[in-house]
């Protein structure tokens, strides 16, 4: 029986047309359904596979012990033109797999693996975080709030990029506000490293503490903890009896503006993991694949602050994932427009101005990769801290 099955399989395989190429996406234990990092990795690769006529498979990991076997299983088949690792947690496994399979092309998002056959795709998160920081600082000054907040995850180098850019942006916003209005109202920064990328309750607690200290908004830099951040902000509004305006929620990675029907999510610092994956597949198809670091920033469309067009794209993303009901689509768009309208037009123009400055290179946003570099930036932009 089994032999017959094997034969049948061989016949079936022989009958299937040969595809032009194959790509694989390997996810960490977070898996699909996060509406953010992992889903975007899938989306970008899927899009690229569609555009270039490739076959794509997705491999999830039930435990961290599956990372290396998953990479080996795929590489051993010698069928895949590219294997994409979504997330820095796969870094250790890829380090080893890249050495064992030197002829296999790999790409990794958000981590640097030093091997000639690995394309390490990193993002200049400092750039979009600067835009969010500038927006937050000017909004705080406009509404008379003393602070703006950020809730971060585990203290790893990637998050230093966010913090460094955010600090620079707040400082830029403070100066801009003073220049435009003629009165200086420097906004302070409240920041917390929660030490977790999974404990939603920690995000809520940290946000509550920041709101109590007069934060005009909270920037989520801890993935799923944003759910808790937004919950705290929503409860704050409910107690105050307000439906829009400050305090605001600032999303991360994906466009999270539509969360909570866009009642309080003002903008998102987007890190386009989908663009990263797409870039890697495109490089392989076009024969321009090289190992080493590929850095994506505002100029490459790898990061950005959320715009209306992104909102439309990600609302459809949310609806297709079942996280948003189709009948809530119009209400979400209306809420978003009302909430954005609570920020005066000149502030939005100032954010655009900062974006243009970063794009043409006249404004350089600092970043930090080590604890020492981070300390230096904290000392440079103290933002209300003694």
């Amino acid at each position, binding site marked *: 029986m*089994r032999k017959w*099955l*094997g034969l049948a*399989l061989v016949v*079936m*395989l022989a009958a*299937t047309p040969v595809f032009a190429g194959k790509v*694989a996406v390997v996810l*960490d*234990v977070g*898996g699909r359904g996060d509406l953010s990092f992992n889903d975007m990795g899938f989306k970008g690769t899927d899009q690229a596979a569609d555009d270039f006529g490739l076959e794509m*498979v*997705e*491999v*999830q*990991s*039930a*435990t*961290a*012990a*599956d990372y*290396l*076997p*998953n990479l*080996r*299983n*795929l590489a*051993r088949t010698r069928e895949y033109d590219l294997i994409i690792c979504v997330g*820095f*947690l796969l870094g*250790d*496994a890829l*380090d*080893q797999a890249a050495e*064992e399979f030197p002829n296999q092309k790999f790409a990794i998002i958000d981590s640097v693996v030093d091997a000639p056959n690995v394309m390490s795709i990193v993002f200049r998160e400092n750039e979009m975080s600067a835009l969010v920081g500038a927006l937050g600082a000017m909004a705080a000054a406009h509404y008379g709030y003393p602070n703006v907040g950020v809730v971060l995850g*585990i*203290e*790893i180098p990637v998050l230093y990029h966010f913090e460094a850019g955010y600090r620079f942006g707040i400082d830029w916003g403070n100066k801009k506000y003073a220049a435009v209005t003629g009165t200086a109202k420097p906004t302070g920064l409240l920041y917390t490293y929660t*030490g*977790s*990328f*999974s404990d939603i309750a920690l995000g809520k607690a940290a946000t509550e503490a920041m709101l109590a200290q007069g934060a005009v908004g909270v920037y989520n830099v801890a993935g799923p903890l944003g759910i808790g951040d937004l919950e705290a902000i929503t409860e704050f509004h409910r107690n105050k009896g307000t439906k829009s305006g400050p305090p605001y929620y600032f999303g991360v990675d994906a466009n999270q503006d539509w969360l909570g029907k866009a009642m309080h999510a003002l903008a998102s610092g987007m890190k386009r993991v989908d663009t990263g994956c797409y870039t890697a597949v495109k490089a392989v198809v076009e024969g321009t694949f090289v190992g080493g670091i590929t850095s994506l920033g505002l100029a490459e469309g790898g990061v950005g602050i959320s715009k209306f067009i992104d909102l439309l794209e990600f609302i459809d993303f949310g609806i297709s994932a079942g996280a948003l009901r189709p009948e809530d689509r119009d209400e979400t768009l209306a809420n978003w427009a009302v909430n954005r309208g609570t920020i005066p037009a000149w502030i939005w123009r100032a954010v655009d101005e900062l974006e243009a400055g970063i794009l043409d290179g006249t404004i350089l946003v600092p970043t930090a990769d080590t*604890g020492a570099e981070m300390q230096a930036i904290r000392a440079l932009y103290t933002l209300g801290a003694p």
Partner: protein
Amino acid sequence: MTTTDVRPRGRWVRGVRRTLTGLHPALESVLAAVVGLLVGAVLMYIWGYDPWRAYWALLRGAFGGDYEIASSIARGVPLIFTALTFSICVRAGMFNIGAEGQMYIGAAAAVCVAYFQLPAGLHLLVGILFAAVAGAVWSLGPALLKLTRGVSEVISTIMFNWISRFLVFYLVAFVLVDPRQAQRTVRIPVSARFPILVQGTDLSYAVFMAVAFSLLVYVVLWHTAVGYEVRAAGLTPTAARYGGISIKRTMLLSFALGGVAAGLAGAATTMGLPPTYAIISGLPELMNLGFDGMAVAMVGRNHPIGILFAALFFGGLNAGGRVMQFYGSNPVPLEMVRVVMGAIVLAMAIPELIRLFPALAEAGRGLARTIARRKPATEEGA
């Protein structure tokens, strides 16, 4: 109206049940596996996946060659230990749900060897010892609560799991953390790692420790006086006590031995599994090994030798499950793979579950009686 002439179906159901319960355990397991595979096939068919090709991928991925077999064994190694934790205590008449937490503590203790240097073999042995002692010490909490205050070990071990989970979360984040890679602890140095047994796979020499420990548990339980006392206490505590066996001693002993096993599961994972050799924040490489071990214990009929085969079966399911996700042109998403695995494991655990929980067996018998009676009852009414 006599029962004999209106209940031919009842007799038939009873007959089937008697045949089933009288089966040889191995045959029973095979039958259960077939039922589980069929349920899994139906589930996959309903959701539009080709069950034949999916199972072929599973089989290929689990046992298709040296690489696959080594990967399957490697995946089963920690499960052997956590299964033993559960089984030893079942033999002593207790439900120890605490393997998960004891394993976390064992893993954290093993990571501590990164802070000092020793010659290669010795370093490894010290790490194993650390993990074993830490696991045993952690298991003493629920054991002493039961012995001195009569607290149910089911409740206390579950609560201790949560304590150890958050304790290890804390240790990983603040004490054992690698300052350059804050998402994980410091790495265990090469001198304290289990060497890889089959190059290019995850299989390390930890497998020998697992098999040896299984055999040790078998010898202790079935070929020593202490083991006899443990099993006697497990079968009928009152009779055992009347026979002069100290129930407290057997309980403490089985808890401690179980704790050692769970600690070793932590050691086998942190010191014997490439590539990280550290605990990652959120414990994604340890999570659920303790609970999966309980399922392995059920499938292995709570016998140390049965557990070896059950762990191989489990490792194969998991290793093959990885391959099901991409093999051939019939990729099955991980979520579906886990549903199918769940169906197979549940089917295989049912015989032992019924044996362990007489109430469950009684419910099953009641159901069989109801089914048997329904038909004649309606005929009477008509």
